[in-house]
């Protein structure tokens, strides 16, 4: 059974090697045949004609954190639904209504974050 999964591992490895290989190839070709003239201006971070004037690793909007946290909640929800969805035909209405209770609790939370404005990006 497990040997079914071996080609997947192999594909992941080959994918990585292909990426690294293409990049190396590009590096070699551009060095040998193309132009390769780095200068300090060219290597500085791009900033629309200005010289970069502070570190780029600046503070950013807290809402990105919020989205990430909400994502974890809902993605777990999806993960909970997967096994239920797979056996729904066998477990019948009892299984269906059990999951409805669970979904109802989630919807309450979803409505709460909606009301609180966690989903607003003005």
């Amino acid at each position: 059974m497990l040997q079914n999964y071996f080609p997947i591992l192999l594909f992941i490895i080959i994918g990585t090697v292909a990426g690294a290989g293409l990049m190396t190839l590009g590096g070699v070709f551009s060095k040998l045949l193309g132009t390769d003239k780095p200068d300090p201006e060219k290597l500085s971070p791009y900033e629309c004609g200005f010289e970069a004037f502070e570190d780029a690793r600046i503070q950013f909007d807290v809402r990105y954190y919020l989205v990430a946290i909400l994502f974890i909640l809902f993605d777990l929800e999806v993960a909970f639904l997967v096994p239920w969805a797979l056996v729904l035909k066998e477990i019948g209405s009892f299984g269906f209504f059990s999951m409805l209770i669970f979904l109802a609790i989630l919807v309450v939370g979803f409505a709460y974050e909606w009301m609180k404005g966690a989903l607003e990006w003005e």
Partner: protein
Amino acid sequence: MLDLFKQLMDFLHYNILGMVIYAIIKIVVIMVPLILGVAYMTYAERKVIGYMQIRIGPNRVGFFGLLQPFADVLKLLLKEIIAPSAASKALFFIAPILVLMPALAAWAVMPFFPGVVLADVNVGLLYVMAITSLGVYGIIIAGWASNSKYAFLGAMRAAAQVVSYELAMGFALIGVMMVSGSLNISEIVMQQGRGIAGGSVLSWNWLPLLPLFVVYFIAGLAETNRAPFDVTEGESEIVAGHMIEYSGMSFALFFLAEYMNMILISAMSSVMFLGGWLSPFPASIPFLGAPSFIWWFLKVAFMLFFFLWARATFPRYRYDQLMRLGWKVFIPVTLVWIVLIGAWMQTSFSLWK
């Protein structure tokens, strides 16, 4: 001669080294057409959008411009690879590989015809969901390692956008799992051929799951950062976002990954909702009704055309509109439809016994 052939087959099927070599051959057989597909996807994109804007698109290199993709590849190969002085060099060059790897590896479980699949595993769909969500790491690392403000902003936007739409996508796929009761992608396709409409176009998943299909495809547009959801690279505001500091082949890897993901989303929607290799005609019609790889290919091409069509038609979404669509429209729609389908399956009118 026949003996030699039999020996070779034994080597490829029972010897460990032989099995590895056989698997590598199969992987190459998947990868090479895929990369060629990406090359001609760029050509098709320029041609289709060209004609939609009453231009003719590339027509100089080769017959009808058919050699244009190869000219582009040669150009990208020869371009200087810039390593910005402020960047974290190692991460900067690892990021494109991390974006490309999931885009390629997701194809390991994609079935092309019954039995024609690299790894026919029982958790195929789960694997696709898992590996495609790894792509966002590459984007975040690219934006962080570039140490440029545009790249950083682009990466933050891309990460928030991709994870938001992944939820809608996950919920849409839950609906497919409910009706097919399997994670094996070949099994999901087979199940669509057993409907009341005799396995024709009306028995595929897209009809009963139409809202999920629409949500899945639009979420796919957003997931691959394609127009009209390309705020993460929006050339007129944050000049290509996380890819801004990349050049030459390191940029080409991002490009390759984006197009491979487009083809993957098209293939997934054709397999999940449009019946994969099944024929749109009832199975009772001879020849036309037979399942075939050609149908799979035509469906994928059809979905890919929608990507180009959407790009030529819609103006770019604003970021707040984009997040509103993902969280306030798609998630409620998919949740409601999952409950409806679930309730439908409890009644005696269920299509999926």
